[in-house]
């Protein structure tokens, strides 16, 4: 309960930064912070393995990918981004606020029914592995195929179109 009360405000603050900051690199780094805090929250909730996987995949791969592509594509000017946000901010708020209200409404109607059980459900790694490779084996295989395809596809997409190098002219 205490980790939950500490972590959720931190997660939300980092997420606000990621959604609002004008500097793209700051937004990406705050996303990394937010996602690693979500990983900590998973650990605090007892899903240790999921928390660590979240940490290594999101911080180690996704956040790195995002900052890297921010560097390759020149990030647009901060002031320009601020001006643009004036134009797009209000409609975006107009769409997301009703959604938030709706989600909150449904949740409060439902969550009163849910009594929080005191005992923590056990998550043994052995059981997780066994379920993963028996009941969920087709899903694991599908995931493996998907990830391989993605790796090859992304490599092909991101390839520089081949050009013959120009021989340097001697001067």
């Amino acid at each position, binding site marked *: 309960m205490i980790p939950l009360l500490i972590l959720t405000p931190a997660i939300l603050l980092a997420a606000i930064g990621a959604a609002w900051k004008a500097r793209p*690199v700051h937004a990406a*780094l705050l996303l*990394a912070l937010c996602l690693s805090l979500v*990983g900590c929250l998973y650990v605090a909730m007892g899903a*240790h*393995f999921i928390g*660590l*996987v979240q*940490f*290594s995949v999101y*911080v*180690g*791969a996704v*956040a*790195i990918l995002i*900052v*890297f592509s921010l*560097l390759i594509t020149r990030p647009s000017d901060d002031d320009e981004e601020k001006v643009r946000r004036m134009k797009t901010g209000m409609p975006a708020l107009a769409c997301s606020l009703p959604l938030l209200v709706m989600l909150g409404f449904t949740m409060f109607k439902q969550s009163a029914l849910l009594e929080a059980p005191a005992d923590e459900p056990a998550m043994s*790694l052995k059981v997780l592995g066994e379920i993963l490779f028996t009941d969920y084996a087709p899903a694991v295989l599908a995931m493996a195929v998907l990830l391989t395809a993605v790796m090859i596809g992304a490599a092909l997409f991101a390839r520089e179109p081949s050009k013959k190098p120009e*021989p*340097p002219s001697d001067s």
Partner: protein
Amino acid sequence: MMLGNVEFEMAWLAPEQWPRLPQHLVEWLVALCGLPEWLVSIAGWFTSAGVVVGVFMGLFALLSLIERKTLARVQNRYGPNRAGWFGILQPVADGIKMLTKEDIVPAKADWLLHLLGPVLIVIPSILALGVIPYGQDWVPVPLELGLVFFFAVGAMTEIAVFVAGWASGSKFPMLGAMRAISQMVSYELPLIISALAVVMMSGTLSLPEIVESQGGYTLGFLPQWNLFTPWGLSAGVVFFIACIAEANRCPFDLPEGESEIVAGHMTEYSGFKYALFFIGEYLGLFAISALGITLFLGGWQSPLPIFDFLPSWLWFFAKLAVVIFIFLWIRATFPRVRIDQLMRFAWLCLIPIALLSLPTAAIWHYANKANNDIVAWIATMPLVLIPWVVLTVLFNRRLSPATTRTYHFAE
């Protein structure tokens, strides 16, 4: 309130228990003061963490001297020999110099991230050192998910390098950070895949259990470490090469190649922040070597049964010294590779071999289960040898761009 109650035991004085003696003593003293139980265990945790950090900071100071001495020996010069006897006080002198230097923050830098960069580099190395089993009874934090924790924490280093490079607000740090990140991401794959082979064989992610699974001796003298099996040899060599790249050591130290990009992501740092980068780098080197020893070299197991009387942590640190010396030796001997060679090597050579060590490990497992050692060797040896030979030949002949390189201006 439960009062802590810890009895003094003579067993704490055994050599095997020496590294944990401070923790026991602090717990005993705190309990003697009549403090509650939770305070006793917190004091114990802090002491045990302090022991690990203290030992490795001491080793860091020692290594910074030994490295310079070894390099000097290889390069036929004296090395540091002014401060103290044989330059033994050189680390102290370096420390004082670093502490008293001015801390410069460039005008274009993002000061908060500029400060966070070096801090974020040191933290994961120290966290990773916490889960390593140093001795039979000396595991600072025995985690069930030790190996996953090690790699998850290691992911933080990449972000830290990026933060340091980007926040400096100039070209060389940025280039250095981009090089460092692409190198770390590429070499993390073979590192994790080769560690996966060990996990497959021992069936656990807990590092102490992995060490225990390597106990025992074949024919009474050959230790059953993972390195002494065909799949383990292949995976171990891949792991070692990937280690060198992850720790940014020569010949893979392109991110800080002095002749190309000044000092990479550390260019705009001075004073103690610069020292923090070095501390982080060396602690990372210790951590990843310790992991390699745990996975492939039998951790704290002694190499011969007759040496069992020595405390187990002594064997761990002896192995650490040997591995670190090989790192130094390689640094002194090999020239730095080029960035395209580096990436090519990771993706075309290391990853296929690392992937092949997984089926090899599976064959070994099933042949061993049928109690058929000879069949296991015969079945797995070609699987290990052929790819190594083929890839070495291919890499030297066809794929290496060095053969097609033309020197336009230096002919």
